[in-house]
């Protein structure tokens, strides 16, 4: 009897470990990409403008040509990877923390739950980009304004996921066991239930990175957040678009970078969610 119980507890723990491992692999993968991107940008970026070398077509000196400021497009896009990915990462991680905290607060009370769910309904129903654009532009056009606007609109998916997971976890026997052994509600939530939510949360974070890259680059494309001298992909794209006829490579390169990143992030996210099921 005892051995049976022990075995089942062990298998549950092993399952949880393997789930976390999958999520961890995804996270490490994304982290590696970020590190490589930083290395690349450190290796050979000349963000110096060089007006003699404007609009150079791709050659051995400039593999992806130069833009309207005479900057090497390839190194520009590599440097942009650091900017775009770190901003997107910041958006995702801060939103996840905010969403989780709000879910924890709302799981603790019935009234607060329905009120906060209604608020998240409103946030979900509103066009994110438009509201973020207007809010960020009013606060100020810097990176912090961009972050604030995107986080204040981007916490809802994490909130919903964590809330749903918390509610299923609350019905589990081991929660009763923890309560019976005298743990306070806060301790049960944070020490017992939250660790069980983490693997699903990590999977969602991985899926949302691509989305965040798109949001960040589209906002800076529209004129909020990092602006044209910056190497953020959206900003590079916005600056290159009027000169598309003379320097099409300056349009194509950042587009491909955004495209590759979103496709990659989507693929990783899909793989992780499929594994978790």
């Amino acid at each position, binding site marked *: 009897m005892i051995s049976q119980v022990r075995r089942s507890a062990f298998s549950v723990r092993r399952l949880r470990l393997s789930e976390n491992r999958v999520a961890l692999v995804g996270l490490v993968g994304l982290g590696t990409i970020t590190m490589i991107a930083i290395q690349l940008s450190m290796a050979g970026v000349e963000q110096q403008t060089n007006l003699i070398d404007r609009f150079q077509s791709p050659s051995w000196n400039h593999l992806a040509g130069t833009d309207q400021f005479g900057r090497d497009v390839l190194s520009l896009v590599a440097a942009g990877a650091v900017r775009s990915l770190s901003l997107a990462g910041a958006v995702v991680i801060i939103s996840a923390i905010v969403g989780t905290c709000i879910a924890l607060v709302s799981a603790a009370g019935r009234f607060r739950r329905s009120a906060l769910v*209604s*608020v998240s*309904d*409103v946030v*979900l*129903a*509103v*066009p*994110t*980009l*438009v*509201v973020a*654009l*207007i*809010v960020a*532009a*009013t*606060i100020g056009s810097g990176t912090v304004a961009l972050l604030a606007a995107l986080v204040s609109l981007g916490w809802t*998916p994490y909130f*919903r*996921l964590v809330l749903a997971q918390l509610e299923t976890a609350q019905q589990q026997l081991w929660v009763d066991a923890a309560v019976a052994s005298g743990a306070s509600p806060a301790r049960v939530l944070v020490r017992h239930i939250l660790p069980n939510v983490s693997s699903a949360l990590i999977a*969602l974070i991985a*899926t*949302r990175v*691509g*989305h965040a890259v*798109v949001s960040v*680059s*589209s906002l800076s*494309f*529209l*004129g*909020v957040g990092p602006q044209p001298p910056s190497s953020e992909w*959206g900003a590079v*794209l916005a600056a*290159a*678009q009027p000169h*598309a*006829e003379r320097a*099409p490579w300056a*349009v*194509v390169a950042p*587009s491909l970078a*955004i*495209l590759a990143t*979103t*496709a990659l992030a*989507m693929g990783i*996210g899909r793989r992780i*969610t499929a594994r978790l099921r």
Partner: protein
Amino acid sequence: MIRPRPSVERIGFRRLIVTLPLGVVALSLLAFNLPLLAGIDPATATLRARYSDPNPDPAIVASLRGELGLDDHALVRFGRFLLRALQGDFGLSYTSRLPVGSAAWRALSVSAQMVVVTVALASLVGVALGMVAAMQRGPLGRIASAISAAGASLPPHVMGPLCVLIFGIWLRFVPTGGWGSVRQMILPVVVLAAGPIASIAEVTRTEMLNALPQSFIRTARSKGLGPSGVARHAFAVSRLGVLSIAATNLAGLLSGAVLVETIFSLPGLGNFIVTAVRNGDVPALQCGLFVVGSISLVVGSLADAAAVFADPRLRHTAR
């Protein structure tokens, strides 16, 4: 991307009753507080705009504050703002000095045309692609899946410039900007529709794959129905999922419209907002926020309520 599938009890009238009023109040509160967020005084900003004077006389500022009622209690001012907003009155633009509301109204007609055409195109193509992907196991189905996967990872600000480059500049098939003729509509609509097409196709495919193994399909087949009849039967139960995903997409569509209008320089609401952002024109921003937000809330809630009628099975449970 994970989209939480709405559960049955969430669908329907909850959004119409709870989310819509709450959302409009929240939006107008945000719009009302934009000058505060921007750290500007409306009276000073108005005077600066009207007389191009960076430092207007404090006495005149004070008298204008009284005239605009800026010294009243915040609740009174908010009530007045809300009443005027519902009538489409958002004051004068800081840059053009013309009523913001009527400019937004003109811009709205362009955006509305584009969005309506896009929704029609996206629903038709998306549903068709999804059906083909679900029912054809051969290369045709795989091609359909590939097209929708490509659409999913192509945001408008990436696809737009690329399309301008390829079809506008290199091949010269279509004009690269402007609005009015059908030729000018092709690129913006296609770029805007790519995302919705992908998600509608994906949902249609999943829902159809769920419906096809069910017994009523076997009955339909045994009665001698051909592939198109079977597709019609299976789609009858898929409509709900497709409609709710289309409703969720609407907010994204309005966001995409901002990007598309900027890229193709269309005189729509998105361009109106982006211009206001560049000029720091706070009344125009208030107006844009209120109008775009409310439209998306209203249409979203209506679509959710309509979902009840789209699924024959929900008709009995929802009442």
